[in-house]
């Protein structure tokens, strides 16, 4: 019972319109029962279908084997952490011993170079997608505002945006890879190239929806508000800060949520190709590995990818609600 109430409150918190459902027992069905039935139905269908699909790597994984793999993946993570700790302990001890023998000895600290665990890979993916997204926002929002404010600039930029928008960002990846290797060749890179490649690919896919939505938001500001600004003789920068930016926040967020969703999808593919040590690489490595567990591990990754994508969108929604004055648009 406690788990059910806990689950209820969790779902309630994350639900788009929690307000509407709070405290109404009749809506319990809407929030708990029907979603549960849906999930159960899906699990049933999945296990039946899985039984009947034979691949060269054995049967397609059903829910049970995927759950088992979640346990394995977590255990591997714990084991890997223990190994790392043991490694640092040994290193410290060795250094201390040598220092005791020879006071002039300058100890070298080496990083542990074990393989990334599933949890590490999730973190890598998240860091990559967020950095790519933030970079895109830093470029797209000012550009979108400029384009929205100036009709000539809009006419100049629009064809370029329209042509690049439908391009799959993965088509950029080879170009990005080559450019990054040409321009970024320090002997001791602080960030790996594979990270930059994936990140820039994400940036390229986030850019266009954000530019378009921001500029549309800015261009469609109520002309009365613009007139208010004119009557007050607001200087251009104040005009942008006090009128344009707040007025177009709802549209900016629409663009941001749109592109964040796409970014997360694209990232997985980009990581497969760029070998950035994230979830995409995990999937690709398991596929190449081809053990009997591979398919269920990939399926586990698929579920995790989906769940994180969902959480990211909800997170953006929460930020939008906090930032935007237009609460109605955040509920859409």
């Amino acid at each position, binding site marked *: 019972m406690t788990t059910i109430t806990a689950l209820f409150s969790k779902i309630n918190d994350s639900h788009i319109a929690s307000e509407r459902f709070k405290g109404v027992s009749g809506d319990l069905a809407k929030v708990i029962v029907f979603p549960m039935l849906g999930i159960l139905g899906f699990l049933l269908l999945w296990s039946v279908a899985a039984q009947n699909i034979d691949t060269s790597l054995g049967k397609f994984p059903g829910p049970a084997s995927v759950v088992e793999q979640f346990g394995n993946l977590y255990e591997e993570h714990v084991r890997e952490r223990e190994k790392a700790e043991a490694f640092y302990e040994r290193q410290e001890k060795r250094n201390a011993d040598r220092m005791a023998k020879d006071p002039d000895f300058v100890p070298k600290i080496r990083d542990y170079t074990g393989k990334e665990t599933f949890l590490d890979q999730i973190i890598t993916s998240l860091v990559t997608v967020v950095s790519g997204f933030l970079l895109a926002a830093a470029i797209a929002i000012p550009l979108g505002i400029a384009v929205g404010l100036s009709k000539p600039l809009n006419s100049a930029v629009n064809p370029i945006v329209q042509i690049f928008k439908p391009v799959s960002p993965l088509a950029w990846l080879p170009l990005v890879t080559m450019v990054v290797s040409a321009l970024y060749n320090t002997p001791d890179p602080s960030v790996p190239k594979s990270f930059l490649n994936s990140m820039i690919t994400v940036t390229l896919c986030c850019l266009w929806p954000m530019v378009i939505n921001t500029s549309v938001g800015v261009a469609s500001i109520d002309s*009365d*508000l613009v*007139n208010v600004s004119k*009557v007050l*003789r607001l200087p251009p920068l104040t005009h942008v800060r006090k009128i344009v930016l*707040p007025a177009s926040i709802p549209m900016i967020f629409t663009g941001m949520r749109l592109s964040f969703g796409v970014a997360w999808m694209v990232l997985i593919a980009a990581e497969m190709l760029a070998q950035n040590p994230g979830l995409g690489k995990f999937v690709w490595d398991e596929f190449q590995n081809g053990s009997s567990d591979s398919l269920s591990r990939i399926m586990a990754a698929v579920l995790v990818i989906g769940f994180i994508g969902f959480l990211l969108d909800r997170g953006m929604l929460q930020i939008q609600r906090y930032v935007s004055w*237009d609460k109605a648009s955040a509920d859409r």
Partner: protein
Amino acid sequence: MSILLDIDHIDMVFPTPKGPFTALSDVSLKIKKGEFVSLIGHSGCGKSTVLNVVAGLYQASKGGVVLNGKEVNEPGPERAVVFQNHSLLPWLSAYENVELAVDQVFGKSKTKAEKKEWIEHNLELVHMDHAMHKRPDEISGGMKQRVGIARALAMQPEILLMDEPFGALDALTRAHMQDSLMEIQAELNNTVIMITHDVDEAVLLSDRIVMMTNGPAATVGEILDINLERPRDRLSLAEDPEYTHLRSEVLKFLYEKQRKVEPISRKSLSGSKKKTEAA
């Protein structure tokens, strides 16, 4: 009294895809300091265009507007505008909406405390001090319009331009707002140009009613002086023969001399024309 505002033979021609459209032709009007002038006319006759030219939001094609001996070329806070749809910034509270104007106009000349006092004073003037920290979506249409008026008054304009300020309100709220406006007028004695569709409103509030002919090429048709004694009370005026006479003068102008002869089906056309005009 001296002439504060001189609308000097202005023409307004809008370029349209079908060729130039003359909205106003040879509009002239002189307004004295402290005078309350209403512009009345059928929709689409260019009342708003006149106001926008005075506000500086439009540039007259010919002629010009002179305020206090200086020609008006761009918008400015000395010609504050109360827009028909309140046009408050929806993300700011009533107080902050007025504050934006006060910061801009008195940014350097008033201290922080003085500004605060001035903002609160203006909100009190329109009876909005009880809800000054509410946002526009939390208050009624009439209250929004009050805040809009407070914002305009807070700019301490030389002339207050009101573009159908009560047009979007229901009849009872409108009457209430008119009383408030008269109260404020009695205290501040601002110079006001108000656009209206409402004959009673025009007679009740104005010192002069400027009746405009139908467009295109609209111009000033007749000017009616309203010499009713102030303070005016709508109830006692309803029986007043002078009031009834003035009212019928305006009605005669609108429905006999300047009757809209367009057939009903062309109404939508004139509506779209007005839109391009406003754009």
